[in-house]
């Protein structure tokens, strides 16, 4: 909001320079964001908070200045000639809920022309377009003292009547901006005997507006219900200076003054006469109840004992009236000025005291506390996984929470997605049901910019089921390019399925479980046979693998990319693996190699399980050392070299027992159809 500091001089004799004034206003609650221009055309760009409609005008800011600097405030008393006759006009407020007060005045026989130099300069300095002397007068009064007014061409109002009511079904109104609007029965309107002539508190009607031909003018200043104005303003997408103020609350007591001030300006610029006294209909009074203020409460909240004297002084400077109450504790009954609609409670007065006392005058203390810091249940697991991913070389990333309908459908197992009512774009209209679309987007972003080796992870929530939305935490990792970059020391090696698998295994290794199974049956966006679903004790906790090339190419990716998604809600059902010390082996281990040919259908998991079923307690590990296909190995078969390592905690192993276990292993492998190689 723009305020001209020069204009403030109409009401208060300021002695400070503009930068100082801006600082002082900011520190007491009317924030000056910047100072633009020089001299008389200096403008303060101000950020007046929604609770202070009283300060959204020059008189209001001047009132604040008078409180800050203890300067007298010159209020404006319109200088009006005596009114002649009686206006032959009536006002009927049919909707007291929507309109608490409606004040009108009639100016007869005036000439509408160009505004005076002062008005023109001031309005243009604030960036307003000049319309005509009558419309400008109404506008000027709004910026001067804050109360929105409207001026009608009296001769275009039918039936010499104003009715404040709700619109009727089917009624329309062409507003001043030239738009024909279908009115809702919820819209509060100003109507004449026949038709709506203004959308109350928002904008006047086009057909009754002031033109160069206008001779007789009806001035309106009313007190409309903030919610009614806000709803109409929203319904019609019309945010105006008037609606901005009515929504936040206009001063019930200032309607007559506003009317008179507009009348004064009209008479001054275009002549004419004032017809009758103000027509002032009060349908309900908006009286603010007095508030009790305890000095002890001021101290309890602010931590600083403000003396009764200072309390009285500050509040009186702001226009409050205080009545001391008898009693043990100092206490006041405080009467609220009509323009301070935001002050209704004791705490509101405490705030007034704090800001005028000066926030910078309060000491800084740190409160003592005896409670304990409580950890979130998953915090330790989150930290472990994050640290691990970082040390595995994955960069932490954050992608959009929103995806397109297409991506949502492609990457979700569920049909129940959560859509936004007012999305920014179609591409961002659904809450992500998976972190993978975001990951693909980030991988594509990198590849498009020539970043060929990329490792990223994102920890974030995914969303499903709009009835009772579920937020589930996941970690997604994505990788493309080289696992090892080429150098003088080693050739490059591209990232493979087993790199990702190794990383997933490392992450899962933090958790306690009995059995981990890698299932072929991964989601369709993974390449077949290049991806796995990880099942921990019967529950899928992750999926990972190479992204199907058709899916990748939809994200304009033409390289092999590897992605994994870990379902933390399920994984975190498992506790973290406990760390226990085991004595280091004191006796040497013994290795034995077994070279076998198997059918392709025999997986390593099958082999590994059949060996572990032998329950050889000294068997420490069984690892595949070499796999070979082709050559002398028949199609559909593969050759594998397995290495078993035996070790006992109690003794050096004897040759015979190692031979016996080896024979058992050979039997088990043969039972799987394996042929031992010669």
């Amino acid at each position, binding site marked *: 909001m723009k305020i001209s500091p020069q204009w403030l001089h109409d009401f208060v004799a300021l002695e400070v320079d503009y930068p100082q004034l801006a600082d002082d206003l900011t520190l*007491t*609650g009317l924030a000056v964001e*910047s100072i633009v221009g020089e001299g008389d055309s200096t403008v303060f760009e101000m950020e007046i*908070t929604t609770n202070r409609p009283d300060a959204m005008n020059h008189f209001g800011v001047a009132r604040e200045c008078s409180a800050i600097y203890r300067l007298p405030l010159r209020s404006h008393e319109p200088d009006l000639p005596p009114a002649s006759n009686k206006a032959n006009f009536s006002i009927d407020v049919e909707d007291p809920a929507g309109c608490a007060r409606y004040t009108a005045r009639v100016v007869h026989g005036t000439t509408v022309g160009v505004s005076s130099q002062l008005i023109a300069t001031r309005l243009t300095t604030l960036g307003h377009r000049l319309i005509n002397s009558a419309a400008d007068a109404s506008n000027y009064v709004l910026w001067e003292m804050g109360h929105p007014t409207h001026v009608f061409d009296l001769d275009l109002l039918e039936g010499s009547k104003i009715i404040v009511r709700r619109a009727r079904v089917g009624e329309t109104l062409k507003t001043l901006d030239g738009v024909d609007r279908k009115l809702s029965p919820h819209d509060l309107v100003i109507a004449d005997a026949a038709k709506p002539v203004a959308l109350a508190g928002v904008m006047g009607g086009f057909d009754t507006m002031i033109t160069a031909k206008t001779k007789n003018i009806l001035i309106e200043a009313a007190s409309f219900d*903030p919610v009614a104005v806000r709803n109409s303003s929203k319904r019609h997408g019309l945010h105006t200076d008037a609606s901005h103020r009515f929504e936040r609350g206009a001063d019930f007591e200032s309607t007559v003054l506003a009317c008179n001030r507009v009348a004064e300006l009209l008479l001054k610029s275009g002549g004419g006469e004032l017809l009758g006294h103000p027509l002032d209909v009060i349908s309900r009074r908006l009286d603010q109840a007095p508030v009790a203020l305890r000095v002890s409460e001021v101290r309890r*909240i602010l*931590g*600083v004992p403000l003396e009764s004297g200072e309390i009285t002084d500050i509040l009186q400077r702001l226009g409050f009236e205080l009545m001391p109450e008898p009693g043990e504790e100092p206490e006041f009954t405080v009467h609220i000025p009509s323009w301070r609609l935001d002050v209704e*409670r004791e705490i509101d007065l*405490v*705030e007034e005291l*704090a800001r005028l006392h000066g*926030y*910078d005058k*309060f*000491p*800084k*203390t*740190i*409160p003592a*506390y005896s409670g*304990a*810091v*409580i*950890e*979130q249940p998953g*915090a330790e697991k989150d930290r472990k996984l994050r640290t691990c991913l*970082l*040390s*595995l*070389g*994955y*960069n*932490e*990333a*954050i*992608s*959009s*929470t*929103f995806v397109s309908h297409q991506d949502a459908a492609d990457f979700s197992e569920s049909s129940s997605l*959560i*859509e*936004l009512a*007012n999305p920014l774009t179609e591409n961002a209209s659904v*809450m992500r049901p998976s972190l993978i679309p975001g990951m693909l987007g980030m991988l594509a972003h*990198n590849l498009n*910019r020539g*970043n060929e080796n990329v*490792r*990223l*992870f994102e920890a974030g929530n995914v*969303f499903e089921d*709009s009835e009772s939305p579920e*937020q589930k935490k996941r970690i997604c990792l994505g990788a493309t390019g080289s696992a090892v970059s080429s150098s003088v020391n080693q050739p490059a090696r591209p990232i493979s399925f087993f790199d990702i698998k190794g990383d997933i295994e490392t992450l899962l290794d933090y958790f306690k479980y009995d059995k981990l199974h890698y299932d072929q049956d991964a989601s369709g966006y993974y390449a077949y046979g290049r991806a796995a679903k990880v099942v921990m004790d019967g529950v899928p906790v992750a999926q990972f693998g190479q992204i199907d090339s058709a899916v990748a190419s939809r994200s304009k990716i033409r390289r092999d990319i590897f992605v994994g998604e870990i379902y933390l809600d399920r994984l975190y059902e498992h506790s973290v693996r406990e760390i226990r010390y085991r004595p280091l082996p004191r006796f*040497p281990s*013994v290795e034995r190699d077994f070279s076998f040919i198997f059918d392709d259908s025999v997986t390593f998991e099958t082999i590994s399980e059949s060996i572990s079923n032998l329950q050889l307690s000294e068997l420490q590990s069984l690892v595949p050392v*070499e796999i070979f296909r082709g050559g002398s190995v028949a199609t559909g078969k593969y050759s594998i070299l397995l*290495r078993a390592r035996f070790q006992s905690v109690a003794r050096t192993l004897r040759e015979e027992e190692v*031979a016996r276990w*080896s024979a058992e292993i050979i039997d088990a492998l043969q039972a799987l159809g394996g042929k031992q190689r010669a």
Partner: protein
Amino acid sequence: MPKEKASSYSVPKLGTFTGPTLDKAVAKLLAAVDAESKHLSQEREWKDFRDRWLSRNNGLLAQVNELWLKAAPKESKREVGQRVNELKKKVDYQIEDIRSRLVSRPSTGEEAGKSESDREMSKPAPDSRALDITLPGIERPLGAEHPVIKTMNEIVSVFRGLGYSVEEGPEIETDYYNFEALNFPPNHPARDTQDTLFIADQDHKPPRERLLLRTHTSPVQIRAMGKTKPPLRIVCPGKVHRNDAPDATHSPIFHQVEGLAVDTNITFSDLKGTLDYAMKTLFGSSVKTRFYPSFFPFTEPSADVQISCIFCNGAGRRDGAACRNCKASGWIELLGCGMVDPNVYSFVDYDATKVSGFAFGMGVERIAILKYGVGDIQMFFQGDVRFLQQFA
């Protein structure tokens, strides 16, 4: 038999017992152990080998005892003793190691051969040439923390140090938690400042149950107070969303850290002291804070907090020109805060006459932008590794 060759080592008598002489002798002996072990292929051979070296009777190490230690003059005994002990340990270990290699080596032929020879082959030939140590090392790249999350964690840890527990809450919230219980009445213009993203198809629900994306992490405060009686100290980090079209300074996604302290004796001075301490911890002890009135529906009195500009040290000018970071004002606005509005307590069943408290909130991206000088908020959400790696 390689035995003749292997047995060629015998323990020499030492003429002098100086350090260099001893070192030389020790190295020779160890080399001999190594050389002899190479010719062993069977356990039986190993046993002979072991006896030759370790036999108490006249094993080579026993000879070392006689010829080196006992023969040494008094003044050298200590030094010689140390070396002999070390030597014994080494030989013991090496001989046991050779055995385990022998035992694990398949001895029965069938599974033999291939793997073993492979292992032998894969051993690189020892290279005694001096390395070009100026060649780049083999890096194992580390991932980088995201600057926003790193900053968020730093903020949280400052408050953890002051006794605040971390609380989290859902990103999809109800109107009740995001607005109503925070004293934003229905139809209040203060809601307009929040640019809310709403979930579709909510019209059939009562207004307070309608879903939206939380516009701030303040609903977590309501949830926390709803389940915990005072005293309470929490800090709520998290992601929030607003209907803001993305550009260099706006993002529909951003992060906040909010905090709340409620107790029987919390004052406005406590709020000032706590945030002043936090800002000094985050930005350096020379940073000053400035509080001035503001408005938030859920706090009263409310305040905005500025810190003295960390680029120009609050001078407003830097390198002879107006400081761009603080627009020459010397101050940077960083967070909003205030004393919890008593209306909020009524939603969570706290007795506003008995307890008081303060709440504060700050945008994490804004702080990260300041700390690292990032020019475009969108960089945070693109996953560009050239950007992210700068924070490693």
